[in-house]
Structure formats: C-alpha cells, structure tokens
C-alpha cells in the first residue's frame, strides 16, 4: 500500500486579510463564470446546528468563505440581567448545551468569587467529577457527529451508547439529563445519593474499553486518515493570533490548558496529562479529544476515590444569607422560614464589583464576565464563547481546501451554535 506523505503544518501565519474571519475571492476570480456561490446551511445536517456558510466554489476548490451566524440567538445574557442570581443559575447550561455542566460551573464560580464564599471540599470534588463527565459527554458528541459526517456511521452509534451512560449518571445525581442547575452558589443543590459511587465506578471501568473500540474503528482506518490528515491546517502562530483555546489550540502544538495553567477547583490535586500534538490538522484535533477522554476518565476515578471518603460531610456552605436553609428547619424555625422567603422571592444580594472567571470547558476557555451593582440581580453578564472563537478559525483552516474538507474542518472545530450565538 502506497504511503502518502502527510502534508506538513506550515510555519508562520496565513490569516486571510483584511478580515481574518472571511476568505475573500481573489480579484481574478471575482468575475469568473466558473465560480459558483453556494449556501452551506443553515439547515445542512452537517453544520452542527444552524450555521450558514456562504462558500465560493471554483469547481471543487473553496475560494471564498464567509460565515453567517445568529440563527440561534437567544439573548440569554440579557435575560439573566432580569433574573435574580439564584434564578440566573438555570440559564448558562442552556448556552452551550453540550458542555452544560462546565457553563454552569463558570457562572457559579463567578458568583462565589463576588461573594467570597468558601465551598466545602465535597462540593469541590463533586463539581470536578461532573465537569469531567461532561467533558467526556461533549467529546463523545463531537466524535460521533464528526465521524458520521465523514461516513463512519457506526461511530455515531457507539459514541451515543456511552453518551447515554454519562447522561444516566447525570440523571441519577441531579434529576435531569442535561441543564441540571445542580451547582448552586456555595456548593451543590443536594447531597450525592449513595448509589452513585457504584454506578460511576462501573462507568470509569467501562469507558477506557469503549475508547479502545473507537480507536480500533477509526484510528488507523484508511478512509478516516485520508479525510483528516493534513486537512484544515492551523499553525501555532495562527492559532494564538486567532485566540484559539482548548483542543484546537493543543492540536496545533501549543501547551495551554487552564486546568493546569490556572488551576481552579482541585485540579492541582489530581493527576492528569494534557495532550499536545504538533500537526494542527483535523486528525490531531480528533486525537487530542480521544486522549482527553481517557484522561478525564482518570480524573473521574480520582474524584470518586476522594468522594467515597467524604460520607456525611456538608455539600453546601453554611451561609444563611445566600444558601437556602435546610428543609427540615422550615417547619421549626421562624428565622429559617424568613430566610427561605427572602432568597426565593428577592434573591440574595451580591456585593458590588466585577469579576472575570475562566475555566477549561470541553471546547476551550469558557469565561464569564459579571458585573454586580450590589443588588439581587446581575448588572451585566457576558460569556466568552469558545465556539465562536473556534468558528473564526474556519477561514484560515479552509485555505486551499476542497468542498468535501469543509465538513471535516467545521466538524473538527466543534462549535456549538447555542454557544456561538448566545
């Protein structure tokens, strides 16, 4: 079998100018009758939601590309300003609906930073566990859909099999499969049920075997390699210049992971590797996510070890001004009842100030910028969406690509349109 040389990653930069997110037709091609403009999306099955790409094609070659976003604009950031802090916690999970738990975490961390609230250890470890489960979930959705688009249909079934296991765990602990509102300012909404540990152990033992399966399915599969290796190149310089983060950045050879660079929760106390690969193509982005799934499983197992020794510890801070009083006190203590009424109707007040909290979500740096005017509602909430930033790299990755590569490249950047449009 002939070995095809894998195209090398380029040096330096090739960001299209003057607008870095648009690939413009060259002057000779502008009036050429051979160039055809095609709308890719917003209802195309492989655009991961409602993304519209206006593509200029010269034969198979993509000569110009422009993205039109906003089809899924929800105005959540604005709506959150109308809600009390407590109610606003239900919103972030709906912004990036694939990495829901990480979104919830970043907003709750921002509230806690403003309140200067300490979280009990049990809550810290449980938050880490759920965020890593969520990372696995998100990468499984990426892998399933991206492989499906390139023709590997069975990958989709296998990935969604494991995805369901993760969602079952979420249902067990939080009550719903997505959009959990399980993280509350100060800790967790409820204690961890006793049956969770055994179920989660089963999952951590099963997951490495599942990843083995995926690897034997497509890792060395010839069609997969042809479609992904050397496609959608993005150099390290360009990745940094375009503000990339997460797997896209690490696949371009930049060693940057917020979990290790600026540890939040207890990431400095667990043992995990950050995969960094040098080639900056679709295949390396896929590999980074595969390795991350394995590493996340390891983190989940370590969290479980810790949590099992924390039976009976508090799961939420004891601060009556912010945290709802324990349920059984409502019928015995007038004071608790008043606090309960106040928090539910008026909400708690958060001291004046502004914070920026960033975490490593499955898609990269997810951050939340919050301004509080000292009232019971956020004055301004802004999310930094890694999906939007990843989408901005499309034009650079598309240089010299064919129309068939478009699907592979957009899939590998793994934008979630809810996150992009907010």
């Amino acid at each position: 079998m002939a070995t095809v040389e894998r195209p090398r990653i380029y040096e330096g930069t090739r960001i299209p100018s003057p607008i870095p997110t648009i690939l413009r037709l060259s002057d000779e091609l502008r009036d050429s009758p051979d160039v055809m403009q095609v709308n890719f999306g917003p209802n195309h099955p492989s655009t991961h939601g409602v993304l519209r790409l206006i593509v200029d094609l010269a034969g198979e070659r993509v000569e110009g590309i422009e993205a039109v976003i906003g089809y899924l604009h929800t105005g959540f950031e604005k709506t959150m300003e109308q809600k009390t802090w407590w109610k606003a916690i239900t919103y972030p999970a709906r912004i990036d609906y694939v990495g829901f738990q990480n979104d919830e975490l970043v907003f709750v961390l921002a509230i806690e930073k403003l309140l200067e609230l300490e979280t009990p250890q049990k809550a810290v470890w449980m938050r880490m566990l759920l965020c890593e489960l969520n990372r696995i979930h998100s990468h499984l959705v990426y892998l399933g859909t991206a492989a499906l688009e390139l023709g590997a249909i069975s990958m989709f079934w296998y990935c969604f099999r494991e995805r369901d296991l993760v969602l079952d765990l979420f249902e067990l602990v939080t009550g719903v499969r997505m959009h959990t509102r399980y993280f509350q300012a100060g800790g967790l909404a409820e204690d961890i049920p006793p049956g969770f540990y055994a179920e989660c152990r089963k999952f951590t033992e099963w997951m490495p075997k599942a990843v083995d399966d995926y690897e034997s399915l497509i890792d060395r599969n010839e069609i997969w390699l042809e479609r992904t290796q050397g496609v959608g190149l993005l150099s390290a310089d360009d990745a940094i210049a375009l503000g990339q983060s997460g797997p896209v950045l690490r696949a371009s050879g930049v060693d940057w992971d917020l979990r290790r660079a600026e540890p939040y929760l207890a990431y400095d106390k667990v043992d995990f590797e950050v995969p960094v690969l040098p080639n900056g193509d679709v295949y390396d982005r896929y590999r980074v996510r595969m390795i991350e799934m394995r590493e996340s499983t390891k983190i989940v197992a370590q969290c479980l070890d810790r949590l099992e020794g924390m039976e009976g510890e508090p799961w939420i801070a004891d601060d009556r001004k912010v945290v709802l009083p324990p349920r059984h006190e409502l019928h015995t203590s007038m004071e608790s009842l008043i606090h309960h009424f106040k928090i539910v109707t008026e909400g708690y007040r958060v001291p004046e100030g502004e914070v920026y909290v960033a975490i490593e979500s499955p898609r990269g740096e997810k951050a939340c910028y919050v301004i509080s005017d000292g009232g019971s509602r956020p004055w301004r909430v802004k999310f930094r969406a890694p999906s939007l930033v990843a989408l901005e790299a499309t034009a650079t990755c598309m240089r010299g690509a064919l129309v068939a590569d478009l699907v592979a490249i957009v899939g590998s950047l793994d934008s979630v349109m809810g996150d992009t449009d907010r």
Partner: protein
Amino acid sequence: MSPQPYSSIKGFGVTFKQIFKKPITQQYPEYKRPVYPRFRGRHRLWTHENGLEKCVGCSLCAAACPADCIRVVAAENTPGNRVSAGERYARIYEINLSRCIFCGYCEIACPFDAITLEAEFEISEYSRDDLIYTKDMLLAEPIKRVPVADRQLYDTPIPAYKAKS
C-alpha cells in the same frame, strides 16, 4: 503513520463482535426504563390524607420560577368551603408546561411540600393550549405510570424538596 490494511480489518472486528453482544436498545413504548427517583418530570399537587389541599396559595413557587410559567390566584377558605389546610387556598393554579424548563425551583420553593416534580415525562400534546395544566389536572393521579428506580439507593434519605420524609 501510514494506514495499514489490517487496521481497517480491526475496525470490522469491533463491529463483528457486536453480533454476540446483547443489544442495548430498549423497545421504548412497550418497555419503560425506570427513571431515577430524583428525576424531574411533570408536576403534581398533593393533598393531605384528610382530603385538604396542601397548597395554601402563597405564590412562592410562582416567584421562584425562572420561566414565569406558574399562575396562582389565592382565595380565602371559608367554613362553608374549606379547600386547604391553611387560611387561604389556590383558587386558580396553572402551570404552562410549554414554558417550563423543569428546573425544580418550584418544589424547592414551596414550604409546604405541596408541589413536586414527579416521574411522568410523556407530556407531548398536539396543541399548545393543552399544555397549560390546571389545578384539577395537577391534583389527579397521573394516567401514565412510569416506574421509578430504587429510592433508597438512588436518593438521599430525605429528598431536598421534602421537609418531612
């Protein structure tokens, strides 16, 4: 890094192995997987054993709802018309389930354990109007029953939304 012919065959091996495994798919409408006890499905309003409603029309659930989908209009209990255990009762109690996001804040907010989110999840309708659940619908036993997994194992002894277990 070159593709190997046996690598593709390895992939077929994974697919082939599936023949000997039990399918994980479930025949859904006939078989319903038990939901976990914390599952938040359709709401239910509760009554005391003596038939009086637990809800006293305090509107705390409506105040807690992030989607603003609960409407409560309270009225006084009179000796001739005693509906709830408290002073007042909910004359109108409506939940617009087409807006509800199943966050469960209403069951957390209610100080009387009058409203909880139960296991029922098959609530699709042909018309949006049918998704507005009135008090009678919320008080009635659900028609479709969903099995619930072991409460002892998968929930804490006292659920977060219950004052007394």
